[in-house]
Every structure is written in C-alpha cells, then in structure tokens.
C-alpha cells in the first residue's frame, strides 16, 4: 500500500486537484472545452520539461532552455523574412539549437564544469544572439499561413499542439526507457565514476542528452511563433522555472527520485491545472505563484519523508 502511494501518489494528487476544481467550479472548469484548453496550455511547457528531463537523467541541469525557446522563435521568423522556405528554416533552427546543446554538453562533461554555470552562461550568450537577430523588437509579418498551421487547428480530432507533445514525449520515453542510450544516461546520472570505469563514454552520451534538450526547446520556440504569429525575444522566459517545477514534481512519481518522462508529464499537468483552475476561480496571479511554489515545496518534502521511512 505504501508502495502504491509512493509510486502513484503524485498521479493521485493530480486527480484530487482536478476533482477539487471541478467541485468548486463545475460549469467553467469541468467543461470539455476547458479540459482541452488545459492540454493546450500545458503542451509547450511540457515539451521543454520533457527535453530537460533527458538532461536530468544524466544528473545535470539545463538552464539554457528558456533562452533557446526565445532564440528558436526569433530565428525562425528571421529566416522566413530572408525568404527561406518554412521547412528549411525550421531545420536550420533545430540544427542551430543542437549545436548550442552540444557545446554545453561538451563543456560540462569534458571539462567537468558545473552544468548550472555552463548552461546559465550559454543561456546568456544565446539570449544576446537572439536580441542581436531581432534588434530587441518583436518580429512579425511574412509568416506564411502554412507555417502557422503547424500549431493551430486539429488533426484527427486532437489539437495539433497535442500531437507535438505526444510525439516528443514518445521520443524522450523511447530514448530513456527503451534504447541503450537511456541505460547509459541513467547510469551516468546514478554514478558517473562507476559508469566511466565500466566503459560508458561520459562525453558523447552527455553531449547527446544536452542536444536533445536544446532541440526540444527550439521546437517549442518554433511552435510558439507559429501559434501566436509573431516572435518576442523574451517569449521563452516563463519556461525555465516551471519546467523544472514539473520535473521535480515528476521525480516524486512512478520511480523514486528519478527524472522520468511520465512523471514530468504528470508534473506539468499539475502545474497547468492549478494555473487554469485558480484563474477560473478568480485568484490573482501573484497568489497563484505562491500556491504553485508551496505545492512544489510540499512535493519535495513528502518525498524526503518517504525516503527517510524507507
């Protein structure tokens, strides 16, 4: 029983939160329309969080995610304005982000510098490049409708954005749980020295993890631009702390103390539901922040207590 709660407690918490809001505001919160709304709201955050989860698996932090989201959004418009075709522009953005990720991963693993500092510095550099590209202004215009449709409308009954979330989550889940790469990433995260002595290549595996995170963040930048039809150099700002909040909440779910894709999804759902529900109840945004912060602290403390007993 305790085992069950330890594994599925976070999921139960999500269900309880949903039930609570549905009871408090059955008409507005509980409507099918609003539930779809919530999945839309959590999509972009979730993709960033899922990417950062891969980096968490090797025991590192990627704090450059938000900057890469903004960078991706700006660069894609910049290229479109130059007349590059949308598919090529998107590919170029993802490749550019992959290079940034590779540089961070290389510095972190090859020179054994704290990932915190490396990605914070990388994020600052990328932020500078982003402002340089757009001259600090919001970019709009010359965004073709075909491009905008990658983040609008529905495909096979589900919002297009939801399909992106499903796709990226499946990729991350396969990487972490199904292929050899994942075993190596978790081994490095579990005990870097032991993994190294057992012949796991620390540098190349860490680099791949950072590349995945960077590419996912850049994808979110592209989707964000496509969805709102313009790009802002600080558009990704909100994605850093909430993504890590989702990951930390998720680390309390399914597998003890380990970043995992399913847990991260539950974590970001909790954050999205709380945000949506409190807005519907008319709670002011600053109170929402306080409540979200308290919930994350509570989740971490519950995990501590569970571990002390185990």
């Amino acid at each position, binding site marked *: 029983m305790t085992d069950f709660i330890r594994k599925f407690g976070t999921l139960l918490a999500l269900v309880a939160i949903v039930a609570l809001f549905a009871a408090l505001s059955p008409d507005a919160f509980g409507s099918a329309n609003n539930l779809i709304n919530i999945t839309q709201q959590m999509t972009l955050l979730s993709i960033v969080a899922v990417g950062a989860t891969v980096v968490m698996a090797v025991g590192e932090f990627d704090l450059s995610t938000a900057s890469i989201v903004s960078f991706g959004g700006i660069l894609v418009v910049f290229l479109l304005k130059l007349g590059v075709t949308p598919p090529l522009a998107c590919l170029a953005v993802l490749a550019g982000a992959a290079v940034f990720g590779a540089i961070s991963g290389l510095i972190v693993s090859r020179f054994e510098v704290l990932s915190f500092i490396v990605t914070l510095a990388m994020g600052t550099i990328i932020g500078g490049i982003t402002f340089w590209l757009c001259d600090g202004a919001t970019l709009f215009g010359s965004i073709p409708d075909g491009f905008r449709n990658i983040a609008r409308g529905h495909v096979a009954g589900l919002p297009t954005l939801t399909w992106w979330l499903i796709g990226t989550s499946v990729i991350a889940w396969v990487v972490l749980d199904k292929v050899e790469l994942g*075993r190596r990433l*978790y*081994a490095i995260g579990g*005990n870097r020295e*032991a*993994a*190294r*002595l057992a012949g796991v290549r620390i540098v190349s595996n860490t680099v791949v993890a950072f590349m995945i995170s960077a590419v996912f963040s850049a994808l979110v930048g592209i989707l964000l631009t496509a969805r709102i039809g313009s790009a802002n150099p600080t558009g990704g700002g909100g994605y850093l702390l909430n993504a890590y909040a989702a990951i930390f909440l998720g680390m309390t779910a399914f597998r003890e103390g380990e970043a995992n894709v399913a847990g991260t999804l539950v974590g970001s759902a909790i954050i999205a539901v709380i945000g949506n529900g409190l807005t519907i109840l008319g709670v002011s945004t600053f109170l929402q922040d306080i409540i979200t912060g308290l919930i994350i602290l509570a989740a971490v403390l519950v995990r501590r207590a569970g571990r002390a007993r185990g």
Partner: protein
Amino acid sequence: MLDIRGLEKSFGGVRALAGANLSVEAGSVHGLLGENGAGKSTLIKALSGLVTPDRGEIRLDGSICEIHGVQHAEELGFRFIHQELSVVPYFTAVENAFVGRSYPRRGPFFNKQAMRNMVAGTARDIAPDLPLDLPVGRMTTGQKQLVEIIRALMGSPARLVVMDEPTASLSDGEARRLHSAVRGLAERGVAVIFISHRLDEVTEICDHFTVLRNGATVGGGAIGETNRGHLVELMSGRQEVVVARPQPHTGSEVVLDVDGLAFGDRGNRVSFQIHAGEILGLYGLVGAGRSSLMKIIWGARRQGVGRISLDGVALRSGRISDRIDRGGAYVPEDRRTQGLITVRSIAENLALTNLPAVRKWSRLPIISWKALAERAAAVKSQLTIRMASPFARPLTLSGGNQQKLLFGRWFGRGIRLLILDEPTRGVDVGAKAELHAIARDFAARGAAVLLTTSDMDELLALANRVLVIAGGEVTATLSGDELKPARIIDAAFQHQERKVSVQ
C-alpha cells in the same frame, strides 16, 4: 600516561581488534606498526571516540576512561592528524589553526593580532620557518602537516597527538623537518603516537614501539632494543604455512605487456608482463601508488610515458573503451563509489558493460527487459548470487553478492585481461573463497589477471607471481618458493633503502 589493555572490536563477524595493548608515556614518541589491516586504524578510532570497543579498557593516568565521542576525545587532550589533511585551502596557517577552536576576541569580533601571536608562539618551537600568512592551498604537503600539528596544539592543552602516516607523501627534506617538529612536541611533554610504514624513520625518531598483527599486539618495547629485521618479523609473523601455492606460470603467450610505464608522483617507471592464465599480484603499502597504476592500465587515468599493450596491440592512454573492445575487464576498489550504480537495478548493473547483449533485435539498440532479466538469471546461477529479484537495487544484497555483480558484468565476453583492485574488501570469509574461485576461473579460461590487494593471505592464495612496490618503485619480483610473507613485507617496507631485485 595512556594505557590500553586487551582491546577487542568486531565489525559484523570480522575481528578488527583481538586483544590490542598499547602503553604510551608523556613526552615520548611511540611508533605504532603493522601491515595493512593489522588494526591500527581501528585502535586509533577507539581513541578518538569513533569506535566503541567491545571489550578491554583504556586507562588515562591510571584511571579507566570511556571515550564518548570526538568532542570528548578533544576535551581529554587527544589530537588526531589524519592522512587526508583537513585544512581549509583559502585560509592562512593562522586562520586554519583556529578552525573549530575558540577564537580570541575583542568585543564581538575575533582578534586577528592575538590569533597571529598565539600561532607564532607555538610555531616558534615547532616549525620556525613556516610561512604563517600564506594561504595553505599554496603550501607543500609537508607544510600543511606542520599547520595541522600547530592546530593540534591550539585550544585546550594537547596531551596526546596521533599522527597517521604523516610522511607518506613527503620528500626526504620535508620529512626531516616534520621529524624535528615531532621531537619538539615530545619535548613539550606531549605523548605522540606515530604511525608509519617507513621503518628507517621509526627507528630514528621513536622512543618506543608497538607492533599489531591481526588486531592483536604481538610485540613492543624500547626502540633501542630492536632492529629492522626484528620489526619485519613481528609484522609479517606468519609461520610458513604449507598450502598449495599457485605455481609460477610459464609457456603461454604474453597478454598484457607494460613497458616503462610512468606512475605515481615521483615519475617512477614500471615494466612487467602477464601471460595467459597467470595471476600477477601487485603488493604495496597504502599510498604506494597501486590504485593509481591500476587506473592507468585500465585507461581511467591518463598516462605519462611508457607503453601498455594487450595481445600485442598498443592501448591508447585514457581510453577505457580500447581495453573493453580487446577483452579487458576491471573490478574497481570501492564498489559503492566506483562499481555499482546503486540507484539502478541489479539487472541493469550486470548489463551495463555489454548492452548489445540484451537487445530485442540484434540490429537495433532497443533494450529487451526479458533479455535483461535472462542475463541476470544466467549470471546469478553461474556465480551463485543470492538475490530476490533481478530488478531490485544492488544495495539490497550482501557485500559478497554485490562484489559478485562487479565480476558478473564481464561474463559473456571473451575476457583476456582482468584487473582486480581489492576484489574482496569487506566481504565475509565464505564469499571471499567464492570470489577467489571466480578469479581463478577467469585465469583458467586464458585471461591474464592483474590483482592488487592489501590482504596478504589473498595475495598468497591467488598470485602466481608478486610484484612489490615501495616508494614508487618495484622493490621485488617474487614467485614460487620466494613467495613468503616475510619476503614480501620486507620488500614493501624498503623505502629509499638498499634496492633488492630478486629475480
């Protein structure tokens, strides 16, 4: 002043102390000797309050004294200087001397001038030429030792200073300066327990000595009444037991060829070869550079000059994958920090070195959980590992079974070279025998085995040939009838002495 009688202590069935006696006088330097695992550290820990003895008594000035903890030991005037120095690198000698002590104050602030004067007063007697205002991080190891000694004399009056191998990593000149500081301590009336593996310095600076073997005191007295040969005899002690010793190995091809390989801090070189089916033992006291040499050979640490080849192919420096691709295997010295991924399952730990073996389809790098469990089951039955489920975490197993996992993960590959660093540390006798059988089995199937261990019995039970390292140099190569504890210990304690090369 201090009198220890009949101290006993067991850790989970392993007797670390089995009747240790030690008697130290104020104002004298007492040498505490014994090979690795003889019980010196446990005895010291009993004095520092980290270990509570099962039996026996510690008397201080004639009355029985129970030491309740580190704080209490400190109040009694006991000071400990460990091998891993605990100085703050950014602090100067003066600042370090007061860490954890009460500071002289002027109002609410500490008084820097008074601090410096107090330290300078102590340093004048002990180490007059020590730079007091230099950050300790920029000092040599020898100077850091002196800072520790000065620190030991700050605060409440020190009555007993215990030094654990203070000269192990010092140059001769620095060691000499330390010796005079130690003598200075004794002249102030402090009792000093001096642990060292350098017999020459023990006979030089100590007044008395005590030798431990297998946790018990086997000899002691005034240093003037003994000599080097006598001490070696006391430490090794073993009667020449007649057991079926592994025979010297000849005839088969060379698997590992180490040629002029640099290791250690002093830029020493080592050369040796291991043949197929042979177990080569590497013996040296702690600090002799064994583990670092093993790591260089495994490619976990970059090498300087020299060549390492496996089956005639040169291995690149610092490339572990080179070794694994050519059939290398490695069991690291500390299973918790270097061996096991403790947060992953047993099955994953067993598969980590050979992930392609647990693929679902051989062409795609997709893991099959079924193959993972099957591999764990196969290793489990071959090595008789007692485990509940292959998906439990490794720390749920006993130490011996955890150690078997580290061997087991190399199963199913054609192993040519097996490197063992302390393969049975902290496991019980039964598991030890099983692990020895596994190691012999690897050798019987044609692997060259390189073994290093602090356990003399293990060395003698496994090795066909033994290389002894002391002071960063190979001081003896022994095999066959020459493989006797006294010969090995004698060579291991040769520090900057006559170099004997026995072929």
